[in-house]
């Protein structure tokens, strides 16, 4: 695999290799000197056309702990309004001799286009309402740890995802997190249940290989994890649902729903959270909330991804060759 554009690029074996390496990377996080020489001399540019402090910081730390030279370029604002085309921006950055570009863009597909225009390796750090593959990887990594611990005190012998059900709840239509998670979790053998009002379900969702329901309470009764999606402020008044209050009653992880969770059911949220809207404080701060574990896992998983793409892991590099 030359690029990481989509969670669909990752098969189960590759995902588990990323997770295993991420476990090793996570150990680095607990050392006093958090630095590996793995990517010394390599240059990674975080090319962010859309603000995202948390994703950019996570990639920046991941690259730096692997000793890569990491440069952040903020190209906020539509390239149309600036008068420079996306192609010109991407090729300008590439001409500086970078090895990899981590691209965040408000428009779906921008990393695919970039991959056509440059020889640099591309990591999709979130494109529009399409995909966010490293978020899906860190979510699955976090769940793998959780399911292993829940199963038998951390044994690595059995498949931690077998027989598991994950409910993904909220604005599926506009969520890149949801698309990537559906792709990766179904690859890993997880049963995925999408929970949303019909106005926030994308066309063709019935072809995604997951289940769809509007009944959050029924989904909770079967879930080993609930993944809450952020409701974007601009959707709140857009006629997708009448009021935030009504949304919370139907699709929020309220105190009552936390109480109805089965023992051990994990609570995830990619952040930033709208406390009181899609997730109650009781849920966010519950013992089974993995929200901060997700953030911590983000660095380890992104270290693993960058290492696998750039670090000369021949097994990975020789597999894809696409692009």
């Amino acid at each position, binding site marked *: 695999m030359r690029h990481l554009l989509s969670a669909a690029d990752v098969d189960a074996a590759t995902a588990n290799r990323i997770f295993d390496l991420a476990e090793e990377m996570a150990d680095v996080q607990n050392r006093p000197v958090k630095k590996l020489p793995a990517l010394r001399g390599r240059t990674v540019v975080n090319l962010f056309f859309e603000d995202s402090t948390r994703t950019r910081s996570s990639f920046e730390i991941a690259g730096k702990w692997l000793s890569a030279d990491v440069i952040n370029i903020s190209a906020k604002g539509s*390239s149309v309004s600036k008068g420079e085309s996306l192609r010109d921006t991407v090729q300008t950055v590439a001409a500086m001799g970078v090895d990899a570009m981590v691209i965040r863009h408000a428009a779906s597909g*921008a990393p695919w286009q970039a991959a056509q225009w440059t020889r640099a390796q591309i990591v999709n750090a979130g494109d529009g309402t*399409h995909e966010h593959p490293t978020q899906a990887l860190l979510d699955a990594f976090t769940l793998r740890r959780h399911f292993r611990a829940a199963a038998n005190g951390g044994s690595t012998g059995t498949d931690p995802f077998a027989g598991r059900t994950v409910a993904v709840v909220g604005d599926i239509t506009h969520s890149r997190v949801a698309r990537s998670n559906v792709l990766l979790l179904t690859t890993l053998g997880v049963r995925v249940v999408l929970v949303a009002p019909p106005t926030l379900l*994308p066309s*063709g969702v019935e072809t995604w290989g997951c289940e769809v329901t509007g009944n959050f309470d029924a989904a909770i009764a079967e879930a080993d994890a609930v993944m809450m999606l952020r409701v974007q402020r601009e959707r709140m008044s857009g006629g997708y649902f009448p009021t935030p209050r009504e949304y919370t009653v139907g699709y929020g992880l309220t105190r009552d729903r936390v109480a109805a969770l089965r023992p051990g059911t994990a609570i995830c949220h990619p952040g930033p959270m709208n406390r009181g809207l899609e997730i109650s404080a009781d849920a966010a701060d519950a013992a089974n909330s993995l929200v901060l574990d997700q953030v911590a896992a983000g660095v380890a998983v992104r270290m693993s991804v960058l290492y696998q793409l750039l670090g000369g892991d021949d097994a990975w590099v020789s597999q894809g060759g696409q692009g």
Partner: protein
Amino acid sequence: MGETTTDLLITGATRVGGLADEGGDLLVRDGVLLDPAEAGRDGSRELVRIDADGLLAVPGLVDLHCHLREPGREDAETVATGAAAAARGGFTAVLAMANTVPVTDTAEAARHVRALGEQAGLGAVVPIGAVSKGLDGQELAELGLMARTGVRVFSDDGHCVSDARLMRRALEYVRAFDGVIAQHAQDPRLAGPDACCHEGEVSGRLGLAGWPAAAESTIIARDVQLAALTRSRLHVCHVSTAESVEVLRWAKQRYPQADITAEVTPHHLLLTTDLLAGYDPTFKVNPPLRPAEDVEAVRAALADGTIDAVATDHAPHARHDKEHAFADAAFGMVGLETALGVVVETMVRTGLADWERVVEATSTTPARIARLTDQGRRLAVGAPATLTLVDPTARAVVDAADTRSLSRNNPWHGRELPDPVVATVAAGRLTYRR
């Protein structure tokens, strides 16, 4: 058609258009077809021969719908380069949409476009007038003053005349001068400016804002009833969905007295929405590429006459306007040079239509809709020498760089298609020869 000293003798062509039995030779002098027996009788005239053995001679093609970008975006296309591309595509007349900068919403602007076409001398360039001032959908443009300069087709293309009352008034008003309203059917509330992909499985998977089929067919359903109400002429631009076809089929039966016509683009006859999988903005067009079921439906409708005409919606764009992220890139694709080839590929080779029907859809009918009396005429003695010579079997691989247009946003690049146009004669003048 001024006096000339050269005659053009075309030998061996088979005429299409109800005249196949009248022999294949055509003599062109001073813009008119003469009896070929006259060839060479006047020794003072030079005689240029074109051997057209095995070729078809058809009335010159008429494009009801193209964007020539001048004035305003001469970096993407000019009237002269657009007319040259049209001639190469076999067109002898093109209608230039009003969404230039400034908009063609006055008589002066219309005269300017027509004059640019006359300067180019590569076939008729006929301005389309805006329906509303500045295409803003609020107030009628000066339709009558534009009509006095010869404008008959009015359109806000690029925008829908979405206000039902304005549409009604426009239809009523143009009745006075036999005008027609060419509607870009797109409900802006159902398919807003962000909508860049057919709403369906592909838009959901790719995370692109959807443009539902209903945004087109609901406007058409409204407009056909307004056409009946006002007893005026409605032309529906770039029909792209099966539902729109059904509405048109119903309307033509329900309102036999109404003058309702429709067009389909070559790209909607062949290209499908799954081409968007790689996010290549070359395939971003409005209305968007639709699924295969819609392609089948518009082909069948073109074959049975529910859709009357083919129109290119030739939409050239500067390269940098297409090299943005998909959602930010400009809508549209070039199409003048490849139009007839696509029609042959999708309609003739499939057996859906014969050449008589192709001539109707690409020449006779569009000429009638636009009221261009010198276009789309049968190739008989005394008629204007406005014709296209066609090789019905030639094929070629399309190369976007091999073009007379200034733009390269060509969705057919790299694809093998019929390459039928051998020569184009517009009002007696050879405007293209392979």
